[in-house]
Structures are given as structure tokens and as C-alpha cells.
């Protein structure tokens, strides 16, 4: 194994993510400070947590309470490797889903004299760069600091080692999963023929839904606490599963069983090495597996003047809208946007059933569920799709530059696509929301209209941001919009949404027990419509100007 090669590969993998892109950037440049800010921040927060908890613990005079905290810390330490494993498994899998699952044999890295061991190790470590590593830094610094007050440095050292090992274990598992999945997907495409496009679409959505639900369970406060308790209690029962051996080593150390600690630790290391060996073998066999071609149609069929044409779109505009629909149902990284409304529906519904339970709905529950399900998904969709709809063109954007497309047509077809997709989401979420919450007719009407207004306004606001901040970088994953633009636009949209919804604020205050004088709901909705129209018109003018600049600066 050439370690320098591994380091170079990791550097290439992470370099694209750190690249600073600007309108006229010709040379590579990056702000190194941002590279370390995440880890520095995690370190500082971890130290602060460790100091705060340690000082509290050190200042306690009640010995029983001290013992309880000491025991709880032990339970937490035992659970942490498993938690980190789950957390990193989800994070690295989510990272992989955004990248091309199959490594392209045309990438220069695969022509060069680099072994599969080096490729696999670099890929495994590169998965961990960013949030996964930052989470380990945070936990490690907190544990190390707190352990000084506990007076149990060996336990802290072993816990930190277990965290690192767990993260590597998760990443190696992801690497194996990625290779197997790309091979499996290839086999599925081969057998599913023309249905392959839809098989992929549904399969990807199911995969994302599963992982989002796990992610939500892990990151929600209650879920994490339940998991910690469950993991600490269940590890002994499932000791034969190698993934829990790191936690078992910690549990053995706390119980003073040093030989057992050493055995579990050694077994864990051997398991990680075996798993890594398996990943290398699978990569060697299938790493550059080329999946079979997906055949979508047989014979020559061309589109005819369509429904979109009857709605007033030119053949050019209709073609772009049709192309974007295909992109969003065929490109895995774009299918990602469909997950948002599904999560918007599923998570509150699960909470609705799980928290309140039974057949009786508590008073006020529907009042919160309805605005959440009617206002949020469509607006969020409009904002997300608006920001990425230009950048998703990637390097194929040259066709727009070379085509006889005017700025007006570009804005029209892209804005129409944003609205159509968001309205479809609103329709689905709205129907489910109304069926579940059974609101009064006027309230349902008001929310539906407000949601449409949000889609119209935030769609055009985000389209302008998407044009100005378009990022056509596609490797290692399509970026679509610059992070700063995305960040600023999210804040802007949030502010504008509040402005649009402001005539309904008296109703919201009434619900939370602060009644103030309010106007008729239909008048409030009308005022909202005027505000939204003004915002949409102002941003439409600005978007046209941005589109003109975008098309005229094609070669810059």
C-alpha cells in the first residue's frame, strides 16, 4: 500500500468540494480557513460541553447523584460507538446516493497505477471527511475533557478509539454496500427492460425514505435518548454481532474485565480488517462495473404538439419542460428533491399517530398539522427546485447557450416547471392533509390559496437565485447552486413567506391563545395575494435581467 497515493486520492476527492466558484474564476482557489472551521467549531463545542458537564460533576457534594452521573456516563460511552456507527452509516450512504454509484472507467484515476487497496482506503476515508469527522471530533473532545473530572482516562481513550473505529466501520460498510448496489442495480436494469427507468425512480425513493426516517429517528432528541438506552441494554443480548463488539469492549472495561476487553477489542479490529478486505475484493471485481444500457423505447417516435402547447408554451419551451421532467425522474441526484415532500407528509403523520395515538384527535392537533402539510411542502419544493433548476443543466448547459432561446423563454419554461412540480406536491400533500385533519372549509381554502401564493412568489425568487448562483460543477457530485446563494436565498424566502402570510398572523395568534382583532379570512387572503403578486412581479423583472446576463455571458 502506497500511503502517499492514498493521501493524494483523498485530497482529490475532497478538493472539488472546497473549490470556491465565482462568475469569472479561471484558477483554482479555496479558503483554507473554511476547511478547518467545521472541525475547529466541533472541537470548541466539545471542549465547552466537557468543561460544563465536568464542572457540574466536580461541584456536586451529593455522592449518590455523583455515582448516578458516573454510571450514566458509562452507559453513554458504551452506546456511543453504536450511535456513531448508525449516524455515519446514514451520512455516508446519503453522501453516496448523491454521487454516481458506478465509478466511471473514463476517470483518469482508474488508468493510473493505483491499487484497489489504495482506492478503497481512500474512498472509505473520504466518505468520513466533513460532518462525520466533525461529529467524532465533537464527541472525542467532550469525552476527553469530562474524563479528567471522572478520573477515568483509560475509558475515555478507549471510547475515542471506539468512535474512530466505528466511523471507519460504517464507512467500509457503505463502500461494500455501494459496490453491491451498483452491481445489483445493473442486474435489475437488465431484467426490467423498458421499466428500468421507473424501477430506478421508485427504488431510489424507497431507499431515501428509509434513510430519512432512520436519520430523523437518530437526530430527534427523543429518538436519540431511546436509542442510547436501547443500545446499552441490548448489546449484551446480541454480542455475537460483530458491529457491537466495540461497545462490548467498553462495557467490559467499565466492569473491570480486562481480558474480555482485550478480546472484544482485538476481535473488533480483526472484523474491521476483514470487512475492509471484503470491500477491496468487491471493488476489484465490480469496482468499474459498467451497467447495461437502459432502453426506454423502441422505434422512432417523436413528440407532437402537446398539452403544454395548448397552454401557450412554444415548442421550445414545451421541449425544455418535458426534458426537465425526464431529468427529475431519471437522474438520481435530482430524485432527491421528491424526498422532501414525502418526508413532510410522513414525519408529521407518524408523530400525529405516534404521539397522540388512538382514534381520538386531541383539540388543536389538526390546526398545526394542516398548515404544516398545506403550506410547507409546495413552498419548500418551489424554493428547492427554483435554486437548482439552472445548475442542474451541468456541463450540457452549452446547448442553452447555443440554442435560439431568449431570456424570456428561459424564465417562462423554467418558472412553469417549478410551479407545475410544486402544485403537484401541493395537491398530494393538500389532499392527505385535508383528509387527516378535516378542517373547516374556509380554513382549508385559505391555506390552499396561501400555499399557491407562496409557490408563485418563492418560485420566481429562487429561480433568480438559481440563475445568479448556478454551479455547473458535476464531479464528484452535481452541485447545482453555490452554497452561499442557497443559504442567502433560504433566508430571503423565509422572510418573504412571513411577509406574504402576515395578514393571517392574527389567526395564528388566536390559535396559541393570544386573540387580537382580526379581519375576515377572505380579505386577509386577498391582501396576501396582492403582496405575493407585487413580490412575484418585482422578482420576475429581476429574473429576466439575470437570465439575459446569464445567456450573454455564456463563454465568460
Amino acid at each position, binding site marked *: 500500500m502506497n500511503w502517499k497515493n492514498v493521501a493524494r486520492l483523498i485530497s482529490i476527492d475532497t478538493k472539488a468540494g472546497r473549490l470556491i466558484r465565482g462568475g469569472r474564476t*479561471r484558477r483554482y482557489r479555496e479558503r483554507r480557513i473554511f476547511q478547518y472551521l467545521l472541525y475547529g467549531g466541533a472541537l470548541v463545542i466539545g471542549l465547552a460541553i466537557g468543561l460544563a458537564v465536568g464542572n457540574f460533576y466536580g461541584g456536586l457534594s451529593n455522592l449518590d447523584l455523583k455515582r448516578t452521573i458516573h454510571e450514566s456516563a458509562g452507559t453513554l460511552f458504551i452506546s456511543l460507538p453504536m450511535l456513531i456507527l448508525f449516524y455515519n452509516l446514514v451520512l455516508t450512504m446519503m453522501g453516496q446516493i448523491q454521487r454516481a454509484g458506478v465509478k466511471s472507467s473514463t476517470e483518469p484515476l482508474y488508468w493510473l497505477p493505483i491499487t484497489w487497496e489504495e482506492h478503497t482506503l481512500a474512498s472509505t476515508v473520504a466518505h468520513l471527511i466533513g460532518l462525520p469527522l466533525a461529529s467524532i471530533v465533537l464527541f472525542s473532545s467532550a469525552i476527553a475533557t469530562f474524563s479528567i473530572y471522572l478520573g477515568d482516562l483509560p475509558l475515555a481513550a478507549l471510547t475515542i478509539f471506539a468512535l474512530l473505529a466505528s466511523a471507519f466501520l460504517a464507512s467500509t460498510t457503505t463502500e461494500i454496500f455501494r459496490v453491491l448496489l451498483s452491481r445489483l442495480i445493473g442486474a435489475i436494469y437488465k431484467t426490467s427492460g423498458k421499466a428500468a427507468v421507473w424501477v430506478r425512480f421508485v427504488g431510489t425513493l424507497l431507499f431515501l425514505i428509509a434513510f430519512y426516517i432512520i436519520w430523523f429517528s437518530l437526530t430527534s432528541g427523543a429518538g436519540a435518548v431511546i436509542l442510547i438506552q436501547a443500545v446499552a441494554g441490548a448489546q449484551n443480548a446480541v454480542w455475537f454481532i460483530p458491529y457491537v463488539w466495540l461497545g462490548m469492549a467498553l462495557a467490559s472495561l467499565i466492569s473491570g474485565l480486562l481480558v474480555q476487553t482485550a478480546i472484544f477489542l482485538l476481535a473488533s479490529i480483526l472484523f474491521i480488517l476483514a470487512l475492509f478486505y471484503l470491500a477491496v475484493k468487491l471493488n476489484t471485481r465490480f469496482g468499474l462495473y459498467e451497467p*447495461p*444500457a*437502459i*432502453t*426506454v*423505447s*423502441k*422505434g*422512432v*417516435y*417523436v*413528440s*407532437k*404538439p402537446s398539452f403544454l402547447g395548448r397552454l401557450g408554451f*412554444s*415548442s*421550445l419551451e*414545451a*421541449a*425544455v419542460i*418535458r*426534458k426537465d421532467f*425526464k*431529468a427529475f425522474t*431519471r*437522474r438520481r441526484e435530482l430524485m432527491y428533491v421528491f424526498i422532501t415532500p414525502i418526508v413532510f407528509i410522513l414525519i408529521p403523520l407518524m408523530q400525529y399517530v405516534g404521539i397522540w395515538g388512538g382514534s381520538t384527535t386531541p383539540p388543536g392537533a389538526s390546526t398545526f398539522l394542516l398548515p404544516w402539510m398545506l403550506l410547507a411542502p409546495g413552498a419548500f419544493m418551489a424554493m428547492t427546485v427554483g435554486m437548482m433548476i439552472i445548475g442542474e443543466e*451541468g*456541463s*450540457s448547459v*452549452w*446547448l442553452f*447557450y*447555443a*440554442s*435560439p*432561446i*431568449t431570456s424570456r423563454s428561459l424564465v417562462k419554461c423554467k418558472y412553469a416547471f417549478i410551479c407545475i412540480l410544486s402544485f403537484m406536491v401541493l395537491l398530494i400533500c393538500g389532499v392527505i392533509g385535508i383528509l387527516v385533519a378535516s378542517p373547516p372549509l374556509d380554513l382549508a381554502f385559505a391555506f390552499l390559496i396561501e400555499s399557491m401564493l407562496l409557490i408563485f412568489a418563492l418560485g420566481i425568487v429562487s429561480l433568480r437565485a438559481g440563475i445568479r448562483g448556478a454551479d455547473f460543477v458535476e464531479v464528484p457530485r452535481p452541485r447545482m447552486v453555490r452554497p452561499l446563494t442557497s443559504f442567502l436565498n433560504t433566508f430571503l424566502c423565509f422572510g418573504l413567506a412571513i411577509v406574504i402570510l402576515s395578514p393571517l398572523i392574527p389567526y395564528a395568534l388566536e390559535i396559541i391563545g393570544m386573540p387580537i382583532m382580526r379581519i375576515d379570512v377572505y380579505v386577509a387572503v386577498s391582501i396576501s395575494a396582492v403582496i405575493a403578486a407585487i413580490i412575484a412581479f418585482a422578482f420576475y423583472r429581476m429574473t429576466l435581467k439575470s437570465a439575459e446576463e446569464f*445567456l*450573454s*455571458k*455564456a*463563454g*465568460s
Partner: protein
Amino acid sequence: MLMASTNENAVELQKVAKRYADIVAVDYLDLNVKAGEVFGILGPNGSGKSTTLKMILGLIKPDSGSVKVLGVNAQEDPVAVKRLVGYVPEDLHLYEFLTGLEYLDFVGDIYGLVSSEKKTRIEEYLQAFDLEGREGDMINSYSQGMKQKIALISAFLHKPKLLILDEPLAGLDPKSARIVKDLLRELAAHGVTTIMSTHILEIAQAMCDHIAIMYEGRLLALGNIEELRQKAQLPGSNLEDIFLKLTGTGAVKEVVEALLK
């Protein structure tokens, strides 16, 4: 009725300049391309060929000078120019998630072709370029040559009056390359102008009526092969020798010997 090359200029570049920061891409270029001719632009890497082609198409605005394409000012009305032009870029990036057929259908719609006409032309071109049977597959499974064929068909599809082709024969099999060459000659006879950039000098010599040789953003020489021979003072020589002499890159032997040491 066949139309031979006329005296009308299809493309007129007057004192066109383009800089990228401290790099001079095109240095006050004057160039006229007659309607109905196949015109070759040659030059070493970085000599400004692609930038010139992009300025003709209206993709890049020159810093100074004017570009007229078929009587239309490319800076003032680039969309009108694009309607008249078929373009194949050097770096091919097609929508990989579309099938070849869907891509051509999309391009046909972009140029406003009616359905029946679009269908007929797509069928004819797919057959000519041996893509029948693969037109329903997603482009991501195509070879480089197949992608090049799709790009060429999409440039020919709307019957443009001007073709701008950057390395048009790259990756093509001999039969398809021959079809493209013959097609360009036939189109020229029908008054269609082609401006192509290539590094394959035999192709340029065989296909082009006139050739411009660019170097460091400037026009070194312009004319037919005989005029270029006279300019280079190399009677009876081929285009490769002329090119190497004019661009001052002819000391190949010494370079090879140095590399072999």
C-alpha cells in the same frame, strides 16, 4: 437548383478582439467567409480557434470589433444567429439521461420543427449514421463516436444555413466520417456554409475551400491550399508542412530527439 459558393459573405469579422484577464485569445482578427464554402480554421492549441467560433455563434461577446453572421450582428441579436446556425462543440456534453431519440426530438423542438418533418429527418439521419436499434437507449451508454453522431445530427436537423463544427469527425468510424464529408460538400453546393476547426490536416486539405491558420489569436495565413503553399514558399508540399512552417512549430525532429535522450 444547386448553388455554388457566391461572393456574398456568410460571416464577417472586423477587428475582433477577446482577452481573458492577461491572456489574449483573439487579437484584432479580420476574417470573411463566403457563403456556400467549407472553411477551415487551423491553429495550434490555444491559438484562439474555439473562441473565434464561439464569437461567430454569439456565445462569447468580443471585447471589441464586430461579428456579422448571414447579415445579422451576432452581438446585437445572438438568438437570430443561433436560429440560423448548427453547432457542434469540441467538448461534447449531451443530456445523458435522455435517449438518443429523445435528445434529437428535444433539439428539433428547440428549433421549432413540425412533428412530421422532425420524424422524417430523425429517421433518415439515424439510418445514415447506423444508429438504428440504439436510438431508444439512454445516451450514457453510448460510445464517444455515437455521441458525436448524435451531436452532428442535432446540428444538421434544422437545415441551418451555417454550420460551425469544432472537430466534427472526432471519434467517428470511417463510414460515418465519409458520410459527414460528403454531406458537407453537398450542403456547400446547396449554399450552406461550413466553418470547421480541426487538427487533422489531411481532412482540412481534402475538404476545405479556404483555410485560415491562426496563431496566438492572430491570422497568420488565409487562402486555398495553393495560396498557402505560395505564402509558405513550399511548392508541392502538403498542409502539414505548410502549417508547421507558418506557425513556427516545425522543429519537430529536434524535439523528438530531445525526448528520446
